[in-house]
């Protein structure tokens, strides 16, 4: 598209770019403050602690498991929301979004309450399926906090993939499953991947529900976010910041990946 004639600097460009600059400066100021408050030595010291290393490992393991679960759910659920219309589908669509708008603490309380109901007690009675105050509970909290994001991203990705091409695949000899696997899924894969990355990034940072549902028992149920809380609660800001810096670095890598998937890779089929 050719450039619009006229001055390149006008009121709209000045206001919007100024707003952008203020916001970026605010974010960078926070990061700079964190960096100023801590140093490499104290970071190394904190990261050498067994409790912290355990929390990092547990964060990565649980968020990895959550990622697998979110992907396994978000693809079929997002596809169903995108492709099928049935009575009550609008309500179901809204319910899927509920965990996004629910205050995180309420997710933790709701999970705790659920496992005091007869159904919850029955689940807890199964030896290998206990959730309350266990590592599996961490995954459950992370899943509830992030699945909606994955599902929403999957629905958007399938919405963008032309449904008529799946129909055409049927005339070319595909079963419905093959049309899904050979057409819908590859066409939606950039959006699906971006949704998965976003969900994983959020899972690593989940905090509120964990504190209520699984507690913060060192070397058992503490993850990076709860380590930060425990350190701050006893007035140790530097160790908390060291872990926070690690989380921040992981978040940055995730965001770069997300933007790569969401922009340049959006037209990955183009030459």
């Amino acid at each position: 598209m050719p450039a619009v004639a006229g001055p390149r600097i006008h009121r709209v460009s000045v206001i919007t770019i100024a707003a952008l600059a203020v916001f970026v400066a605010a974010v960078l100021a926070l990061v700079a403050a964190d960096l100023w408050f801590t140093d490499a030595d104290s970071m190394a010291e904190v990261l050498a602690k067994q409790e912290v290393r355990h929390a990092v490992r547990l964060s990565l393991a649980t968020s990895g498991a959550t990622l697998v679960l979110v992907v396994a759910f978000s693809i079929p659920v997002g596809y169903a929301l995108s492709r099928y219309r049935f009575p009550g589908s609008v309500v179901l669509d809204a319910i899927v979004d509920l965990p996004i708008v629910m205050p995180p603490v309420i997710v933790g309380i709701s999970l705790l309450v659920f496992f005091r109901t007869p159904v919850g007690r029955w689940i807890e009675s199964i030896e290998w399926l206990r959730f309350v105050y266990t590592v599996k509970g961490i995954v459950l909290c992370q899943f509830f906090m992030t699945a909606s994001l994955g599902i929403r991203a999957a629905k958007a990705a399938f919405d963008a993939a032309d449904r008529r091409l799946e129909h055409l695949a049927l005339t070319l000899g595909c079963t419905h499953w093959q049309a899904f696997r050979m057409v819908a899924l590859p066409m939606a894969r950039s959006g699906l991947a971006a949704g998965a990355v976003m969900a994983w990034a959020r899972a690593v940072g989940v905090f509120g529900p964990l504190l209520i549902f699984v507690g913060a028992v060192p070397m058992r149920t503490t993850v990076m976010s709860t380590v930060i809380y425990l350190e701050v609660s006893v007035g140790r800001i530097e160790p908390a910041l060291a872990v926070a810096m690690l989380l921040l670095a992981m978040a940055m890598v995730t965001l770069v990946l997300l933007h790569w998937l969401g922009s340049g890779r959006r037209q990955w089929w183009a030459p």
Partner: protein
Amino acid sequence: MIRISGLAFRAGDFRVEVASLAVESSEYFVLLGPNGSGKTLLLSCLCGLARAERGTVIVGGRDVTGLEPRLRQIGYVPQDYGLFPHLDVARNLTFALRARGVRHKEALSRLGPLIDMLGLRGLLAHWPLTLSGGERQKVAVARALAIEPALLLLDEPVSALDGPTRAEVLEQLHRVQRQLALTTIHVCHSLDEAAAVADRAGVMIGGRLVQAGRLEDLIARPEGPEVARLLRVGRGNVE
């Protein structure tokens, strides 16, 4: 050959009815009609993407009315060609064979004669987005022919092309159809286009097939004022 009798189906509030239509083997049949007359819907029903409420569709002696699209062996080329944007031309062409479990390389080798017939050899590594309209059309036709269809359905195959390309593509379509002796139904608006390829033609108005026969007969003896008005435009678009 294809025989349609008592076919009726609904798309929302719009009803499509074809009381009787026979298209002979190797015949090139053109379906004319204004926008919104149900031509595309009829093609969708023939290839199984819309469910018939009643009536029968017999293709090559086989009743395909209740069959899933994949079992009908009907090639369908939609108006926008429907190339898969995430696959290069080669993989678009081998799509149907790969769905049947044939490996890509073997499928490509099997499709060699078809690829050469349509002059697509030089385009195999290209992506659909980089092709011209005429090239996309050829790839879409070749992809539909890869299933060795008993019937080929073309939905306004040249409507998106410019004049010279349109004539060239029409000529090629006609040649390929003759070469493969393929029963073909071609939907379009233009009498010129119909005259260039049709053995026979039919006119659809308001969801109903109102007349079918040789194009000259339709023009000479239109059944009813609506058909007459449609065909009166002569060498222009039927609107």
